[in-house]
C-alpha cells in the first residue's frame, strides 16, 4: 500500500498502515514517522512545502515497497504527505511487519533511505531568513 496525500497524517493513518501490513505470521511491526524539524543547517524553519510528481511518485514508492518486501521477507506500506507541512507535523509514515524484528527494522530503514533517493518529491524550506529548495543543484547552500 502506497499513498501520496495532502491530508494531515494522523494516528488514524498510522493505524491504517499497521493494519495493512499486520500478518499472523509476523513477530514484529516497526513504524516510522518522519516529522518536520524546527531547524535546518542553522536556519529556523517556519514550515516545509512538499511537491510531488504524483503518478510517478506512487510508482517509485511502490517499487521500493515491492523490493523491500522481497529483500527482507517483510510487508511494507508507506504514506507521504505533500503540500504545506508545519514544524512538528508528519511528512512520511512507514509501517513494516516481518517474522522477526531485525528484518523489520532493516526493511523500514531501507524504505526510508530509498524514498530520499528515487521518489520524485521535492521540498522547499521556508525559514525565517529565506526560502529555498532542498537539494537545489545550483543553490549555494547545497
Amino acid at each position, binding site marked *: 500500500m502506497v499513498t501520496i496525500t495532502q491530508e494531515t497524517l494522523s494516528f488514524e493513518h498510522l493505524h491504517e498502515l499497521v493494519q495493512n501490513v499486520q500478518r499472523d505470521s509476523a513477530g514484529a511491526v516497526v513504524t516510522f514517522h*518522519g516529522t518536520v524539524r524546527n531547524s535546518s543547517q542553522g536556519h529556523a524553519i517556519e514550515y516545509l512545502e*512538499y*511537491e*510531488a*510528481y504524483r*503518478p*510517478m*511518485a506512487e*510508482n517509485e514508492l511502490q517499487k521500493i515497497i515491492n523490493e523491500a518486501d522481497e529483500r527482507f521477507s517483510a510487508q511494507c506500506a508507506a504514506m*507521504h504527505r505533500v503540500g504545506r507541512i508545519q514544524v512538528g507535523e508528519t*511528512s*512520511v509514515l512507514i509501517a513494516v511487519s516481518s517474522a522477526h524484528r531485525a528484518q523489520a527494522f532493516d526493511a523500514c530503514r531501507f524504505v*526510508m533511505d530509498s*524514498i*530520499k*533517493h*528515487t*521518489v*520524485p*518529491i*521535492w*521540498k*522547499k524550506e521556508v525559514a525565517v531568513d529565506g526560502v529555498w*529548495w*532542498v*537539494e*537545489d*543543484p*545550483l*543553490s549555494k547552500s547545497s
Partner: protein
Amino acid sequence: MPNTPSIEVLLFGTLKDVAHANHVVVVLPTDMSTLSLEALRGLITQQHPALARYLPHVRIAVNCEYSSGDEQVKPGDEVALIPPVAGG
C-alpha cells in the same frame, strides 16, 4: 496549417520556479517525429534558456519512468524533468 509537432515537458521544484510555469512546450523540427533525449535537451536549451544551466543536474522521466538515456521521445509522451529529489 498542420499542427507543429511539440512535446510538453513537465517541471517540478526549483525548475518550476525558474520557468514560472509547471511545464514548457518544446517545438520539434518539422522533419522530426521522434527524438533522442540528448536532442530533447538540446531543444530545451535553445527554446527555454532559463532552464539550460539546470539540465546537467536533472534526470528525464518518460511516461512516469526514469529514462535509461537511450529512449526516443515523441509527441504525446509524458516527459518530465526531475531535479534532485528530496522526499522524506
